[in-house]
């Protein structure tokens, strides 16, 4: 199935808003670290419901925020949820970014990067569309160290790339980006039931759920264009 088919279905059944709600727990911390200056142009790669582009404009002070997504249904929803002239959404593919060189000051991406058909090439594309000194804030919950995420591929028809944290650093460098930082941003908000309610649908034990959310959380890798 194509990106369009898979994610238009998500957009149609409300999973865009569901993701926004869950991802916000860690995304807000990631967004608040970005060195966005008033007037900057920022890109949200794989924008889904568009919350990050909106937040970067409203709270972050960006002059222009652009969300790119490969699923037209996602982009339609994002546009509908947005009431800000300086937030724009574009249908486009991670494999062939439709942006001129040095178009953006910073780029954010949450739970989307690993869908890129050729992630190293996408890093090279980001290198191209970001100005020197621009940052790429790449946040993922699907990665090698997060063993709780491994089974997700079974439920998603689009192939996913599962790098480890060191692989993210190595690939960023291979694409010519500096690695400015990397860490696990914990989700402190998802509610974790008392121990006697386990096993649940998702976890055998409470300790596992604690590990998944409070420790592994979201893997953030920050790249900088030389």
């Amino acid at each position, binding site marked *: 199935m*194509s*990106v*369009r088919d898979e994610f238009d279905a998500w957009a149609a059944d409300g999973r865009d808003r569901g993701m926004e709600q869950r991802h916000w727990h860690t995304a807000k911390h990631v967004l608040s670290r970005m060195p966005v200056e008033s007037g900057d*142009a920022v890109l949200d790669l794989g924008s889904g419901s568009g919350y990050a582009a909106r937040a970067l404009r409203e709270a972050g002070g960006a002059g222009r925020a*652009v969300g790119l997504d*490969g699923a*037209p249904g996602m*982009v*339609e929803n994002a*546009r509908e949820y947005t009431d800000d*002239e300086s937030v*724009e*959404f*574009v*249908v*486009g*593919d991670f*494999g*062939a*970014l*439709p*942006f*001129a*060189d040095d*178009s*953006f000051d910073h780029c954010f991406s949450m739970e989307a990067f690993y869908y890129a058909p050729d992630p190293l090439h996408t890093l090279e594309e980001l290198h*191209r569309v970001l100005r020197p000194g621009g940052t790429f804030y790449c946040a993922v919950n699907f990665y090698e160290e997060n063993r709780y995420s491994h089974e997700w591929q079974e439920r998603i028809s689009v192939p996913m790339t599962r790098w480890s944290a060191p692989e993210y650093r190595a690939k960023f460098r291979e694409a010519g980006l500096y690695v400015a930082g990397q860490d696990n941003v914990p989700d402190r908000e998802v509610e974790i039931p008392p121990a006697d309610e386990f096993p649940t649908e998702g976890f055998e034990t409470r300790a596992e759920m604690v590990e998944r959310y409070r420790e592994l959380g979201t893997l953030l890798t920050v790249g900088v264009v030389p």
Partner: protein
Amino acid sequence: MKESLVDILCDPLDKSDLELHVTKREGDEIIEGKFVGTVTGEEYPIEDGIPDLRPPDMRDE
């Protein structure tokens, strides 16, 4: 989409410039129209205010 977005858009295939053709506007917003690659000649539709800049072979319509 706003017309100013054109400044940063390019042809996804070869990163060359795009030419904008507008068929419907609402105030500042471009609602219907298309982009045409100045080098590739490829067409990229703008519908309901949304530009579709996927490589043409990824548009399954």
